[in-house]
């Protein structure tokens, strides 16, 4: 059930770094590295490509939430914050910065285990949904271009719709190209012949 994760941890307190390293290892994970500051955390995430980030909020030079924002700008990673504070302002920042879980200190090994499991699950669902949305958006874009290309073919060759579509398919297969690529070329060529694109 528990899956071993490659984790980067950020904590400014030595005792907590040791505790998290030891506890996460006991839970079967692999702690890649331990950062002391937010900046270190951002760098480590870039170089180590972890599967999960666990970070304190209050840290010197850059806090955990700013670090989360910097990491998110670069890469989509699940980030769990652990803090002694949970003021509304911090929670709001955590929400904005795509944090998957917010644990309030003191935490124990038995809190950490389910928190990680649930956070990972939510994160994967989120990533899958996001991918699905992106795929759908792309499909819709492709569809629009194919429709335009079909329209152009119908106008120029007096083919009916099914014939125009079959011709597009044939062109794609003969040239070993994707249907949308063929459609794109036709739309572009049509623009070149007909429209004033200055």
């Amino acid at each position, binding site marked *: 059930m528990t899956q071993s994760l490659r984790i980067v941890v950020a904590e400014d*307190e030595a*005792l*907590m770094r*040791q*505790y998290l390293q*030891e*506890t996460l290892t*006991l839970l079967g994970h692999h702690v890649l590295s331990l950062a002391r500051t937010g900046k270190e955390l951002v760098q480590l995430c870039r170089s180590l490509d972890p599967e999960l980030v666990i970070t304190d909020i209050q840290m010197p030079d850059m806090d955990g939430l700013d670090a989360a924002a910097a990491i998110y700008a670069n890469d989509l990673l699940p980030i769990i914050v652990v803090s*002694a*504070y949970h003021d509304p302002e911090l929670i709001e920042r955590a929400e904005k910065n795509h944090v998957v879980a917010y644990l*309030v*200190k*003191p*935490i*124990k*090994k038995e809190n950490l285990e389910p928190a990680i499991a649930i956070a990972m699950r939510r994160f994967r669902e989120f990533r899958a949904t996001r991918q699905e949305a992106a795929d759908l958006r792309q499909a819709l874009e492709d569809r629009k271009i194919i429709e335009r290309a079909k329209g152009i073919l119908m106008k120029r060759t007096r083919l009916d719709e099914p014939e125009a579509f079959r011709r597009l398919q044939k062109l794609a297969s003969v040239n070993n190209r994707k249907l949308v690529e063929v459609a794109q070329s036709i739309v572009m060529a049509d623009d070149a012949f007909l429209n004033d694109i200055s």
Partner: protein
Amino acid sequence: MGKLNILVVDDQPGKLLTYETILADLQENLRMVKSGREALHYLLHEEVAVILLDVVMPEMDGFETATLIRQHPRLEHTPIIFVTAFSTSEFDTLKGYELGAVDYVFVPVVPEILRAKVSVFVELHRKRRDLARANAKLNVEITERKRAQEQALQAERLAAIGQMVTGIAHESRNALQQIQASLEMLARRLKNGPELGFVAEIQKAQDRLYHLFEAVRGYAAPIRLTRKECGLAGLWREAWSQLTSYGQRNDVKLHEEINDVNLRCTVDPFAIERVFRNVLENALEACRDPVEIVIRFAETQLDGQPAVGISIRDNGPGLTAEQRQNIFVPFFTTKSRGTGLGMAIAQRIVEAHGGQITVGAENREGTEIHIILPRGTP
């Protein structure tokens, strides 16, 4: 204004009639009696502005009557006007003054003089009475103002303490985390042995401390209500099932007497569930098995607004006078493990909803908690 009583004592009905005619103009209550005995009887029950007392009467004369009247503390200063024959000796007049007479009227009575004398005492009495009333009112006002001042001071102090305690509870989290981390790492390094038992004890104490801090923080933090329309039944049943599902108690019963009361209210469901939980938890802890808790409902009003009256009664030993007085005081607890905040939090939540929570009448089997919860507007 209110009419005042004038007591006239004379054994001769004819004279009583004369006095009545003379004094009628004063428009006060005239009370005519025929003997000292009757006069005393009347005075025991009524307040009198002035007494017109005939000296010469059979059985008990005016002086005797006056002596007896004066013995009563309430009547010590009631003015007495003696009515006596003009021929009375100096000695008798003096005796009358010694017995507390304030004045004399001589027969034959001159109506204007009698009326003037009586009216002076009536007015004096009226002024004194009004003054006493104003004084009493002032005293009440002063007491109320003092109480309000004390309350304001207390509230201010509580607010300051609340802020401080919240700060401590907050800051304590880092310390608690260090203890927690060290404890876990220590336990991992210890071989099985008595040392682990001590670690477990520290862990238990640490957990208790943590819950205490959280409770304190929760109590001190400002209440933010998220109201929505919901049925109360779901809330107390949820609270009840939470309390009884883990417990080792099996002989516990909750009787519901809904009495056809509409249980839909616009409240913060989590907060009100907590109120039920805290009250029911106290009830459960106070009682030995078999526990019988009755939750009863009634339609009522609070400040003219429709409200639900809720009463929760247990069959425990009831509360002592001290417990009754302090039940809502933060940190007052009779349980060995309690934080002493349960009822204080319940009160805070109910009051934040504009409601009231009180302890029921004393000398009853078990404890009864009354809650009046305004229905609120959806």
